């Protein structure tokens, strides 16, 4: 199949139509001294065989480890084959966002079911049709809190994923919202500092749970403090499999729950595309950005799905729009839906396995000389250890085919020689015992 967009004959016809002979006559308007007088420095075209060889040799430069103990915002979970099989049907993956939404009842039904599952997991009343990723969803939540309270300041826990923090700060900067850092102490958000920093100017407080270090935060207590001054509590969930195990953020007092759905059936994909989710209470239904799918009845009384409450999006409200998001991550939302439907109550098993294994490795590592576990006992599937030299530890593991934890010195100056480990159901006991043997 030929992908040349125009044949020589077609080119000539076009030239005749617009009255030129040669292509460079089109550039007559550009002064001669600004024109490139040589061919572009590009290699010649390749045949398919050559191209494949070239790409394979480039891919061969990647170092692939037998196993990995990294999380920090991207989690390796088992994806049942049925997920990819269903999602990769061309009806789904070739479809763009439905402009005549109600013509695509199947698409709307899938989004409605996705929203329902997000609500059940987060303990919220309503969820939007999804967002780009967890970080942008969190930033949108910060802005939403300032719209609800009409107060232009948010407190941001430093135990939130540092890259999420950066995204929140970028969005807030552009919206004249002040972001105040809320410090952590021994691995969790410092409640004493929270009490000091809370005042009448604060519109929202952002907490991640489990936080960047894997620890569970005292959400109930934080919620009480935040609500006392009439601010909005935003809970960020970067590892949503945890929701199968703990009391939902809604039950614990969250007003807005956001996070990334990657753990639910999306491969690591070198960092994307992922999917952001966002859920809130009924009273804030008109403050939530993005779109919502609703269920209703048509004129003949049949069940029908409609795109509702998108009237505050950019293509309708222009500069007065709630946010500049005008779409959703439909294919990723569908993946989340298929994954969750496939697992059902077994999602809890995934979470239990992940947590039990994590605690096994943490306990074993903490017993080794020169290694200290930083978290208290209350953590999910990630934990932090302090070592004598983080790079030496990582190198030792890499030499044995294991990608060890994330070096936190890259994110926090005070956390040099601290490593963040993650264990999921995909890591075996043999792998963990191997780590212990290497580091002993």
């Amino acid at each position, binding site marked *: 199949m030929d992908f040349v967009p125009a044949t020589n004959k077609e080119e000539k016809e076009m030239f005749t139509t617009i009255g030129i002979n040669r292509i460079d006559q089109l550039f007559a308007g550009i002064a001669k001294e600004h024109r490139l007088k040589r061919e572009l420095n590009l290699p010649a075209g390749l045949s398919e065989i050559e191209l494949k060889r070239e790409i394979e040799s480039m891919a061969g430069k990647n170092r692939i480890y037998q196993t990995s103990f990294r999380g920090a915002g991207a989690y390796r979970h088992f994806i049942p084959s049925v997920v990819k099989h269903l999602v990769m049907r061309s009806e789904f993956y070739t479809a763009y966002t439905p402009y005549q939404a109600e013509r695509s009842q199947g698409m709307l039904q899938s989004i409605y079911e996705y929203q329902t599952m997000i609500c059940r997991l987060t303990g919220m009343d309503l969820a939007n049709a999804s967002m780009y990723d967890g970080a942008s969803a969190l930033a949108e939540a910060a802005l939403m809190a300032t719209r609800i309270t*009409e107060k232009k300041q948010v407190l941001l826990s430093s135990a939130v994923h540092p890259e999420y923090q950066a995204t929140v700060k970028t969005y807030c900067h552009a919206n004249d919202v002040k972001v105040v850092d809320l410090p952590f102490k021994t691995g969790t958000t410092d409640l004493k500092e929270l009490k000091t920093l809370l005042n009448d100017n604060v519109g929202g407080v952002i907490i991640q749970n489990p936080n960047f270090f894997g620890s569970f935060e005292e959400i109930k207590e934080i919620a009480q403090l935040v609500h006392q001054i009439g601010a909005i509590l935003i809970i960020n969930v970067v590892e949503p499999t945890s929701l199968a195990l703990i009391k939902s953020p809604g039950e614990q007092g969250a007003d807005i729950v956001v996070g990334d759905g990657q753990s639910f059936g999306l491969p690591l994909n070198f960092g994307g595309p992922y999917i952001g989710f966002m859920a809130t209470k009924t009273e804030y239904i*008109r403050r939530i950005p993005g779109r919502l799918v609703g269920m209703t009845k048509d004129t003949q009384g049949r069940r029908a799905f409609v795109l509702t409450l998108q*009237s*505050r999006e950019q293509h*309708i*409200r222009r500069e*007065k729009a709630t946010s500049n998001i005008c779409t959703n991550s439909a294919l990723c939302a569908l993946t989340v839906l298929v994954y969750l439907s496939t697992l059902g109550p077994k999602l809890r098993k995934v979470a239990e396995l992940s947590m039990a294994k994590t605690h096994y490795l943490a306990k074993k590592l903490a017993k080794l000389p020169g290694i200290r576990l930083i978290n208290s006992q209350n953590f999910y599937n990630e934990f932090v250890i302090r070592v004598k030299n983080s790079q030496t530890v990582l190198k030792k593991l890499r030499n044995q085919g294991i990608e060890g934890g994330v070096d936190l010195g890259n994110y926090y100056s005070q956390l040099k020689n601290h490593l963040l480990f993650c264990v999921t159901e995909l890591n075996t006991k043999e792998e963990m015992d191997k780590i212990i043997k290497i580091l002993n």
Partner: protein
Amino acid sequence: MAKTNPKNLKYTKEHEWVKVEGEIVTMGITDYAQELLTSLVFVELPKVGKKTEQTKTLAVVESVKSVSDVYAPVSGEVIEVNTSLTKKPEIVNEDAFGAGWIAKIIISNSKELDKLMDADSYTKFCQKEEKH
């Protein structure tokens, strides 16, 4: 057809009406405006105590087909809002000049009232808008 614009009210180009009683004005959107908007499904009321500025956004009305801003007809401070619109926004459609009022504002500069139209000018203004 929209109802006749009452003579005792003043009007803005953005289709708000104002009833002046001493230092306090009651305001809402005109019957002409509600008819163009069609059935309202939501009215976002300002907070009591909000400082208003003439021609700046005061409230938001959402109909089945669009979302529109309602502008402050005068500068001042909101002293009361019509909370019954929260549950029943359709009151604006039924009685825009009466029970469908949106907010009461205490005026900070009464000279601003001179910039508003009387009923006759507003009616002509609407007729002109319709031709466009």
